[in-house]
């Protein structure tokens, strides 16, 4: 056994010196290959962790939500609908919700204005999300004013700021009392944005939903499952940005492998001839070339993955921020919990290391018939 190790080490010595002979090319290859792994691994780690987070955090979203649609657009729902829903068997409770979007010209940001179902702030007071506080540089006690639907000014004193750790779900929230909400937007009593419904028996959710749909044909019903499913395919490979990324990476992989596999240069051919002439078997030459490929691809994978992990889980994925933030002004300050899918990592490892190593070896098979006596001439 020690003979085998010793042999591999000697071959590795020579493989490294072969790579070092073409230092520039090797380092360039390593850098680019590592970069590709970095980008892919970053996207992979980020999307998996985000999906996991969404799954956990949205576990308690409303069971059933009822929206009213007019001409395909979302419209306010009347309390008569609320009464109708309450009358349906299987419904435990139904409550009207008030929430909407508020554009703040002072910050050029969109806030989600909301009346919380319980413990609403007092009149004239507001509880704001950490993102809002950041973008307006606001603290508790500060006053924020907005123009109501009729042009009058409505002011809010900041009562509390939602903890920054929850920024991922609450960064842009602006919680106010019901009276203030209606005053600001001019929504009359008896009208709500939508209705939250809880069901007596969780297994009956679909049946109840069907009943509501039958009773109120101008409504659209959203179930908890659907809400959660929305985030299952965020950053899916079919999505525009991700597809672009993936195609680019796959193309680059392919180019590298093809470059390696398409044949040996005259110099390399000469070297192999000399090696065979001094007593190396074809198997030895293949082992050498495999080690060369292995060293480069393994190094690229380890470095790329390491940097990707740090990028996503330690530094908050700053390279993805432009895509996620897009045109918005408000962006939640969050750091994902490192949930890693081992299978994905293993797959990435496999596709990084094996095709490239194999591509290194392929031209040797074809050049296996290099007659050592050719070097005599």
């Amino acid at each position, binding site marked *: 056994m020690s003979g085998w190790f010793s042999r591999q080490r000697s071959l590795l010595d020579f493989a490294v010196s072969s790579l070092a002979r073409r230092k520039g090319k090797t380092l360039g290859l390593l850098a680019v290959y590592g970069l590709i792994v970095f980008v892919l691994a970053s996207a992979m780690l980020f999307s998996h962790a985000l999906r996991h987070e969404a799954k956990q955090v949205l576990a308690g*979203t409303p069971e059933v939500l009822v929206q009213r649609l007019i001409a395909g657009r979302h419209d306010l729902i009347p309390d008569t609908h609320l009464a109708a829903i309450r009358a349906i068997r299987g419904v435990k409770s139904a409550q009207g919700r008030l929430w909407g979007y508020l554009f703040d010209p002072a910050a050029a940001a969109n806030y*989600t204005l909301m009346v919380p179902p319980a413990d609403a702030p007092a009149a004239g007071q507001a509880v704001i999300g950490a993102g809002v506080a950041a973008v307006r540089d606001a603290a508790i006690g500060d006053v924020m004013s907005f123009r109501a639907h009729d042009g009058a000014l409505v002011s809010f004193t900041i009562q509390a700021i939602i903890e920054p750790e929850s920024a*991922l779900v609450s960064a842009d929230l602006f919680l106010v009392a019901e009276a203030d909400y209606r005053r600001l937007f001019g929504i009359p009593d008896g009208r709500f944005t939508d209705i939250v419904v809880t069901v007596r028996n969780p297994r009956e959710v679909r049946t109840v939903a069907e009943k509501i749909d039958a009773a109120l044909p101008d409504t659209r019903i959203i179930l908890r499952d*659907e809400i959660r499913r929305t985030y299952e395919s965020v950053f899916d490979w079919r999505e*525009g940005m991700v597809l672009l990324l993936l195609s680019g990476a796959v193309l680059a992989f392919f180019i590298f492998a093809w470059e390696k596999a398409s044949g040996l240069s005259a110099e390399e051919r000469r070297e192999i001839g000399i090696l065979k002439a001094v007593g190396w078997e074809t198997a030895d030459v293949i082992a050498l070339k495999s080690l060369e490929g292995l060293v480069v691809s393994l190094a690229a994978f380890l470095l790329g993955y390491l940097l990707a992990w740090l990028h996503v889980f330690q530094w908050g994925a700053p390279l993805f921020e432009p895509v996620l933030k897009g045109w918005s002004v408000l962006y939640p300050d969050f750091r994902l919990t490192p949930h890693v899918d081992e299978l994905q990592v293993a797959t990435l490892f496999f596709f990084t290391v094996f095709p490239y190593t194999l591509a290194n070896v392929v031209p040797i098979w074809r050049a296996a018939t290099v007659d050592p006596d050719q070097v005599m001439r």
Partner: protein
Amino acid sequence: MTMRSSDMVLAAMLAASVAVGATWVASAWRVRAEQPEVLRRAALVEQLGLTDLALFTEARYTRHPSQSDRHAAFQDHPFALEHFPSGSVLPPRRQP
């Protein structure tokens, strides 16, 4: 140059592998450590009746993708092309 080049390479690979292994350990540790935080977020979601992550605050249908329907993206204009970057990372809602 007393160290063989193969030894140097093996040492470097080992170091990198150890570092990658460390990320595994760090992941496991942080998952456990950050669990209370995650639970607090989940509690807030339940308490306020939230339906979406506050990730994409550019437009209404990107801020609440679970609440928007297929028409939402075209509210402004029937032939509206997607001009929000986040719209390209979130798929349209699949009908159940």
